[in-house]
Each structure stands twice: as structure tokens, then as C-alpha cells.
């Protein structure tokens, strides 16, 4: 890139970012040059705070590249990339199933490096706060959350749209697992979410992802679905759930598969551990490679741990020969 971007072309190169705009060869050639360019990163909304407030300044300081992020639901971002609407250098998704549809045109690999889990966030000043607090501090069993508290008439529960947001599906799957784990009646989930159609978006409980936590923080909801990373970053009061139901344990992956949600389009999703995956899109750029490498470095993973994520040993999936060498080195490969 340093060689390619001389004279008048330098400005265009420094503004960066078309995935096809730079070659990996030029990327490696820039190793000794002063880094220029921007890592354009499309990331799952649950990474927004971490990426924009923590990783971005640290990455720019450490690597010299600028950072430009775009948050959204993982499925939405996958659609946007596939349709050519956006052309990021890097894609971070919740779940590899949002990356594999982009193979092999946009990428041939992804690396799994962090995990998160579902919690129930609650309003600490609402009329039902004492019931939630009792469960959060362990003085009441967690199963009472599902058998009674969340079924309290008039309780205001918020969740996201299962058709477009992984968290919306995960929350329903968590309730299904809890129903089984706590040996509750078969209509428990339907009673809690107010419908037996798990894929419907026509429910007064459903909020846009951007509005859900804000509504809870404003005190206008009693409880809401959340990833534990969101609860940590937004300082939400929350109830941690057992591994058997929180979709955050790899040891329970087989049991999670028993929970399913069929959305409006007819597609059925099975429960799985909630992992964060990262890949480059298009021909890797120097800035994009640097961002992935930084994310997978010990410094990057420490930021994820501080943000409430479970840090995993970075593991590559797909065609490992397509992974740029600089990233492979972070995998120990």
C-alpha cells in the first residue's frame, strides 16, 4: 500500500476501504511504512460500545490506522454485505452462521475468539425490583424468575425482534431451555412472551435493539433481554443465568440445540453458544488485517474480557490457507 499510494493517489488510499481496492501483497509491503488508511469494520450491535469506546482508540494508538465502524444486527450486516450495499474491510458477527453465507465470494474463513451469554436485565427502581433483586442475589431460586416473576400480570418485559436480531431469538431459546431446566409447564414460554407464535414481531414486548436498553434505563420497563456484555457495559442490573440455559457454555452446546425458533420467513434457528467471530471481507487491506490482528492479540482479548465477554482461544474455521499470514501469527499458525 505504501508503494501504491504515492503522490495524488495517497489521499484516496488514506481514505481507504474498498475491499477490492488494495491487495494483500501491497498490504505486506506496507509493513515498514508508516501506516495509513482506515479499518472499516461492520460489527454486531452488541460490540458497539466496546468497538467505539475501547477498541477503536487503543487500536489507532497501537497500530496507527484509523477506525470507522458500523453497528447493526449480524443478519442485517450479512445481507448488506451480500447485496453490495456496504463494503467493510472487517466483519464481526454473533455466530459463524452469519458469515458462512458470504463464503466464498467475500471471505473463506473466520476466527472465533469470544463468547457472550444471555441475562435478564431489570429495572432496579421499578415496582418488581425487589423480586428481581432477590433472584439476582441468590436469596430466591432462579427458576422462580420463570415460574412466577416474569409471569406477573402487568409486568412489562421487553425483548427484540426474533426475525432480525439474534438476541431476540436467543431470549426465546433461553426461555425454552429454562422451561425444561426448571421442569415448568409446557406453556410457560408462551405465557411469558404473551404468544405461542415465537416468530411473530407483532407483540407489544418487542422493541428495536437500539430502543430496548434505553427504555429499560429510562425506567419504563421492568425487565429486558440482554447479552451479559451489554449489561456490563451499560451498568444494567441483571440476573445471571445457569450455563444450562444462558447459551454461553460450549459444554452445553448439544443441549442448546433442543431450543428452536421458527421466524416469519419459515426459517428455523437452533440454539447454539453465542460466539463472536471475525473475518476480513474482500481482498484484505493492511488496515483490515491490522484490526483483526489487534483484536486477536492479548491486548485486544483483554478488552473483551473487561467488557464482560468470555475470551476463547482464537480458532479458525473454513479455508485456513486463505487467512493472511499476519493474522495466522496471532493464531499461533
Amino acid at each position, binding site marked *: 500500500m505504501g508503494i501504491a499510494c504515492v503522490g495524488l493517489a495517497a489521499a484516496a488510499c488514506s481514505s481507504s476501504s474498498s475491499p477490492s481496492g488494495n491487495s494483500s501483497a501491497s498490504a505486506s509491503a506496507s509493513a515498514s511504512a508508516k501506516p495509513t488508511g482506515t479499518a472499516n469494520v461492520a460489527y454486531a450491535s452488541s460490540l458497539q460500545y466496546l468497538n467505539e469506546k475501547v477498541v477503536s482508540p487503543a487500536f489507532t494508538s497501537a497500530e496507527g490506522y484509523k477506525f470507522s465502524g458500523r453497528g447493526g444486527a449480524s443478519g442485517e450486516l450479512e445481507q448488506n454485505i451480500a447485496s453490495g450495499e456496504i463494503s467493510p474491510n472487517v466483519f464481526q458477527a454473533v455466530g459463524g452462521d452469519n458469515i458462512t453465507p458470504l463464503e466464498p465470494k467475500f471471505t473463506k474463513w473466520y476466527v472465533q475468539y469470544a463468547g457472550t451469554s444471555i441475562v435478564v436485565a431489570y429495572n432496579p427502581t421499578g415496582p418488581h425490583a425487589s423480586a428481581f433483586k432477590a433472584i439476582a442475589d441468590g436469596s430466591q431460586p432462579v427458576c422462580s424468575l420463570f415460574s412466577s416473576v416474569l409471569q406477573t400480570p402487568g409486568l412489562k418485559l421487553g425483548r427484540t425482534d426474533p426475525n432480525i436480531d439474534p438476541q431476540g431469538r436467543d431470549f426465546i431459546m433461553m426461555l425454552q431451555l429454562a422451561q425444561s431446566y426448571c421442569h415448568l409447564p409446557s406453556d410457560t414460554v408462551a405465557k411469558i412472551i404473551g404468544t405461542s407464535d415465537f416468530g411473530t*414481531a407483532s407483540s407489544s414486548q418487542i422493541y428495536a435493539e437500539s430502543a430496548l436498553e434505553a427504555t429499560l434505563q429510562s425506567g419504563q420497563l421492568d425487565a429486558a433481554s440482554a447479552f451479559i456484555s451489554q449489561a456490563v457495559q451499560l451498568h444494567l442490573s441483571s440476573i445471571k443465568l445457569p450455563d444450562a440455559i444462558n447459551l454461553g457454555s460450549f459444554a452445553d452446546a448439544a443441549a442448546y440445540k433442543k431450543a428452536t425458533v421458527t421466524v416469519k*420467513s419459515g426459517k428455523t434457528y437452533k440454539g447454539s453458544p453465542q460466539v463472536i467471530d471475525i473475518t476480513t471481507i474482500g481482498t484484505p487491506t493492511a488496515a483490515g488485517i491490522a484490526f483483526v490482528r489487534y483484536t486477536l492479540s492479548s491486548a485486544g482479548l483483554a478488552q473483551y474480557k473487561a467488557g464482560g465477554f468470555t475470551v476463547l482461544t482464537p480458532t479458525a474455521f473454513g479455508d485456513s490457507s486463505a487467512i493472511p499470514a499476519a493474522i495466522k501469527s496471532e493464531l499461533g499458525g
Partner: protein
Amino acid sequence: MSWAARAATAASGTVLGEEAPGPSGPARRNGTTPRTVRSVSGLVSVIGAAVIWIALLGPVIALFTHLSWHAVRTSLTAPGALDPLVVSVESGAVTLAVLFVLGTPLAWLMARGRLPFPRVWEAGVLCSLLLPPLVIGLLLIFMVGPYTPIGELLGRVHLSATNTFLALCIAEVYESAPYYVLSAQAAFSGVDPRLEQQAQLLGDRPARVFRRVTLPLATPGLAMGLSVAWARAMGAFGAVVIIAYHPFGIPLQIYTTLQETGLASALPFALVLLVVALPLPLAAYIWSARAGRRRRG
């Protein structure tokens, strides 16, 4: 006349074609070449205007060039695909009714200088125009959420102002109200107060003067204000997505379809939005222009 009203009057005057007769004005009626294109500078003006006009139409042109008619047919014939259209039209109609009933008296009082500290009133209306719609939505949570005094009051009559049709109407009213109130203020400011005074001297009471003199003269401007508010309500998204995710209107249908199945299947709903939202403002424009010409004789 206040600065806001003057600015709005200037804008609506141009829109109505009262100050600057265009191709439909006297020149065309006389069967001659419009004066504006007789000279080179006039031709340059027309070309410049055309460039700006086409640039403004850029997104609409992009819509039509990227629409797949197969996708239009597939998207719009899916079961329930047009339900959001009904929701949008119904909520838009309610919004217009609320704006007319509540916004018209406010605009008249502002235009006639009947309110103390007039700049404060104008600034208040401008505030909701300045705030990003997303922020309006977030602030509406504090105002009408279920645990607020208003929310609890609504709860007593089994109503809710979050994720309901009522919430959708509230969000649309807040997003579109300033457009109507400022346009209506300009329309009332354009009515010569001497005509009202003469009607009063002839014995008409204020309410009758308003009904027989002020309202008819201001109607073209009010119609334009309502049509702009209608277009704003139909396209309202920022506040809507925060407090009224359900039931879906067309903007949210576009948003969710984009996320569910991608751009190709979302774009047809943008076409529906244009087809539904555009006729009313166009009709109001044509009617206002004709009314303006009739008034000029």
C-alpha cells in the same frame, strides 16, 4: 410578521407560484416562449435549475433504476405485505386530524401576535424541529412511558403509548407538527388583517370572521402545510422505531424487510411509500396554485 413566518411565507409564496409565475403562468397562456428562456442567461438558469432538481431527485432515480419488477411483484403479493400500508394511512390520517385541530389555533395565535413573548413560542415549535427524531423518540419514553403519569393515566383506561397504534400516532404527530404549525403560521400571516377588521366593523363576531374571512384566505397555505405534514408523517421513522416498533407502518416495514431479506425485497416498499404519500401533497400543490391564481384574478 415574525422572522419564521416571513421565511415560511417567502417559501410558500414561491411554492404557490404567486410571486414567480413559471411555465404555467401568463407567458405560457399567451402562447409565447417563457420570458425566462428567451435569453442565454435565462437558458443557463433553466439548465442550472434542472441540474439541481435532478440532483434532488437522485435518490428517487436510484430507486427506480435499482428496482427489480420481479422483486416488486414478489414482495408486494406476499401475505400481509400491504398491512403496513393500511397502518400508515390510518395513522397518517389521525395525525393530520390532530394537527389540524390543535395546531391551527396555535398557528393563528402566533401569526396574529396574540401571545406574550412571541419568540419564545416560536422557539418552542422550532425545538421539536431541531431535535433529531430519534432523540424525540427517546424523550417521548420519559413522557408517555407506562410508568410516567401520562402512561399510568392511559393504563387506567387500558391504553398504552408504547408499541401501540396510539404510540405510532404520537410519534408521527411529534415528527410532523412543526412543519404544519410553521406553515399555518405563514398562511395566517399572509391574510391581510384589514380584511378581518372590516368584517368586524360590519358586525361579524371574531369566530365568524375567522370562519368566513381568515380561514378561506389561509386555506391554500394550510393545505400545503397539511400536505407537508402528511408526507412527514408517512415517512416518520426515528421516533417511531423507538416508541412504536409495533404495529408496523411502511417505514418500519422497509427497515425490517431490509434486515430480514435484504435490499432487493425492501426497495418495493419504498415505491409503495412514494405512491401513497405523494398524491396528497401534489394535489394540495395544484389546488393551492389554482387558488392563488384565482385570488389574483
